[in-house]
C-alpha cells in the first residue's frame, strides 16, 4: 500500500468532492448540505454545526478513500474508470442505505412515521434523498463518481 499516494490523492479527492457538493447546492441542484447533516449530529448551534460538519465530513471522506485504495490494491491496478465504478457503488449505498437509515442514527432528525418532536426536528431525506430536492440523487452520484475517478486516476499502486 502506497501511504503517501493515498494521503495526497485521498485528500485531493475529498477536496473535490466537498467543493462539488457545495457547488451543486449553490447551483440549486440540491438543497442537501452534508456538512450540516453531520454537524447537527453533534451540536444544535446552526453556525457551529456547519463548521464541525465540514471538518468531520472532510475527515470522513479522507478515511473512506482508504476503502477505495484497498480495492485498488486488491485488484492490483487503479485507473479513473475503476475509481468511477467504485464511486457509483458508494453513491448508491449512500442513497439507498444511508439516506433511508439516517433518521434512525441522527439524534436530531425527525422520522416520517412519527413526525417532528421537541428533540428531533430535522427533515428526513426520504427515498434517495429526494426530500432535499428531486435532483439530489444526481448530485450525489456525480460527486462520488468524480471522487472515485480522481482517486483511481492518480493513486499509484506499487
Amino acid at each position, binding site marked *: 500500500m502506497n501511504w503517501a499516494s493515498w494521503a495526497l490523492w485521498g485528500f485531493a479527492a475529498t477536496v473535490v468532492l466537498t467543493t462539488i457538493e457545495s457547488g451543486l*447546492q449553490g447551483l*440549486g441542484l*440540491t*438543497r*442537501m*448540505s452534508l456538512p*450540516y*447533516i453531520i454537524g*447537527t449530529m453533534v451540536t*444544535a*448551534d*446552526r453556525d*457551529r454545526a456547519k463548521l464541525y460538519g465540514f471538518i468531520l465530513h472532510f475527515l470522513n471522506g479522507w478515511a473512506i478513500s482508504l476503502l477505495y485504495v484497498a480495492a485498488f490494491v486488491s485488484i492490483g491496478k487503479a485507473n479513473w474508470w475503476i475509481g468511477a465504478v467504485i464511486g457509483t457503488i458508494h453513491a448508491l449505498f449512500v442513497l439507498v442505505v444511508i439516506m433511508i437509515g439516517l433518521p434512525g442514527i441522527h439524534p*436530531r*432528525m*425527525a422520522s*416520517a*412515521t*412519527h*413526525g*417532528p*418532536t*421537541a428533540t428531533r*426536528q*430535522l*427533515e*428526513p*431525506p426520504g427515498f434517495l434523498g429526494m*426530500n*432535499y*430536492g*428531486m435532483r439530489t440523487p444526481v448530485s450525489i452520484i456525480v460527486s462520488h463518481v468524480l471522487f472515485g475517478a480522481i482517486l483511481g486516476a492518480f493513486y499509484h499502486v506499487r
Partner: protein
Amino acid sequence: MDWLCWPRFDSSPVFAGILDLEHGGRWQITPSLLDHTERKYVENSNVLQTMFHCHGGKAVLTDLMPVAAEDTKKRALLPENEIIRQVECTEGNVQIEVTYQPRPDYGRTAGKLRDGGKLGIRTEFGSGVYWLRSSQPLRVEGDRAHAWFVLHAGDALQFSLTYAEDAPAVLPPLGEWTSQRIEATVLWWQQWVGKLHYEGAYRGPVIRSALALKMLTYAPSGAIVAAATTSLPERIGGPLNWDYRYCWLRDASLTVRAFLGLGYDAEADAFMNWLMYATALTQPELRILYTVFGENAPKERELEFLTGYKQSRPVRVGNAARNQLQLDVYGEVIDAAAQYAYAGRSFGRDEQKVLIGFAEYAMKNWNRADEGIWEPRSGPAKHTDSRLLCWTALDRMIKLVERGCVQGAPVNDMKRERKKILHDIKQNAWNSKLQSYTGVLGGDNMDASLLRIAYYGFEHANSDRMRSTYALLRQRLGAGDLLYRYRGGSSEGAFGICSFWEVEYLALGGGTLDDARNLFERVVRYQNDVGLFSEEIDPNTGEALGNFPQAFTHVGLISAALSISERERGKRQLPHREHTAEENHAEKEVAA
C-alpha cells in the same frame, strides 16, 4: 395572508393575492357566519391578533414570525424563516375554513403540493422548499390544501409555515412547543420595547413606529427596506405602482436619528455598517437604492399577468429609479454619518476616505440638474432640495473635520463651495414675488421638501423666509390636516412623511409647541387600525395609498415626536445640526 416574500423582502412571493385575487395565492384562515373582525397587536409586540366575532361564537387568530434570543439559537435548531398561526375558539362554537394555496413566483407557478404525512405538506420551488405543518390534517386538492374544522370553546388549531434553502429543513413540532415559542416571541418584543428611551407624550405611536422599522429591517445585513410591498398603488386603478422592497439612502439620516434618538444603538450600528458597506462599493458615486446586501437594485419590469391591487396596473418589480441622479442622497448619507459621529462613534480611515469622496462629489456636482427627491420620470431639473442636501453634505463634512471625526478633507474648498450653494439657494430658489422658496430654482411651484430647509439647519424655522414659505406651502399643498408633496398632473394622495415634516418644522420653532402637538395628534389619527402608515393617505377617505408599511413615514413620525419632546424638555434639538447657516454667518460677522 396574501403577501409573503422569502427569504428576502425582494424575493418572489409565495402568496401574492394582494396583487391578484384569483392567481396570486394566499393562505386563508377564516370563520363562517362572521359578523365582524377586530385586530390588534399584543401589547408592545409584533404579534398580531385578529378577533373573529361570529354568530355562535368567537375566535382569536394569532399571527407571528417567531423570534428567539441569541442563546436560544445556540441551544435549539430553529427554522430560518417561519410563520406561526394559531386560531383558538374563545366562546361558543366557530366553524373555521383553512385554505393554503401557495403560488410561487408572483403567482406565475402553481405550487406542487406533496403530502408528507406527519411531516407536513411540502412545496418545492427553485432552490427552496416550503413546509406547512398543521395540528389537524389538511387535504391536498391539486394546487391547494383545504379543510373545515369546528372549534368549541378552548379548542385551538396551530400551523407553522417554514422556508429553507439548506437541507435538512427544520420542522418545528406543534402543540406545547409552539405555544412556548409564541410566548417567547411576545416576551422578546416586549423586552426590545423596554430598551426604548422616549419620555414624550406620544409613546404609543413612537413604539409602533419603532416596531414597524424593526420589522422592515433585514437582520442578516442591518439594511432597512422602504416598504414590504410592491405596486400597492398611489392612486387606486392608476399606474403609479412601484417596487419599494429596496433600501433608499434617502431614509438614512432620519433612520439614524430615529434609532439613536430612541436608544437603539445596536440597530443604529447595524444600519450604519450596512450603509458604509453598500456605499463603499460604488463610491465616490452613490446609487439611489440598494438591495439588502448592498447590490444594485434589479432593473424594472412589468408583470403583465397580474391584475394588480384593485385593478391598479401595471405591477412592477425592480425599480428604474436606480439609474437616476438624485444629488440629495449625498447629504443624507453624510448627515447620517455626522449624527453617528456626534453620538460618540468613530470611523476608520477607509470609511473616512469614502465619506470624503461623497462630499467631494457633492462639491463638484451640486450645480447639476437631477431627478430630485420625488423621482419623477419626467427628466432632470434644478431642485432646491437637492442643492440643500449638497449644502448639508459639505456643512456636515466641514463640521466632522472641525470636530476631529474625519481627517484629510479639503475643508477650504468645501467652505468655498458651501458658500456658493448658500448664495445660489438664497438668490435663485427664493421667489421674491411669492415671498417663498420654491421647489425648483427660478420656479413658482411649491414642494413639501422645502420644510427640510429648517431640519437640515440651512435656515432657522422661525426666520422670515421660512415663515412666509410655510404659509404659502400650507395654502397650496394643504389637504386638511395633511400635505401633498407637490401639485402634479396626476392626482395622488397626501404624502405621509410631509405631514410629519410639517409637525417637525413647527416643533423646531416654526410654530408654538401647541401647534406642533395639535398637528401631530391630528395626523396620527390617519394610522390604520393597528397603528401603521403607508406612503400616502387619501385626504378625503383616510384610506392608505401606496406601499405598506412605509419606513419613511414612520421615521418621520419618530423624528417629529423626538423634536416635540426635546422642545418640551428644553433640550437641544437636532444636535448633529449645530448652527444654521444664518447663525454661522451672524457669528462670523460678530467676530469680524
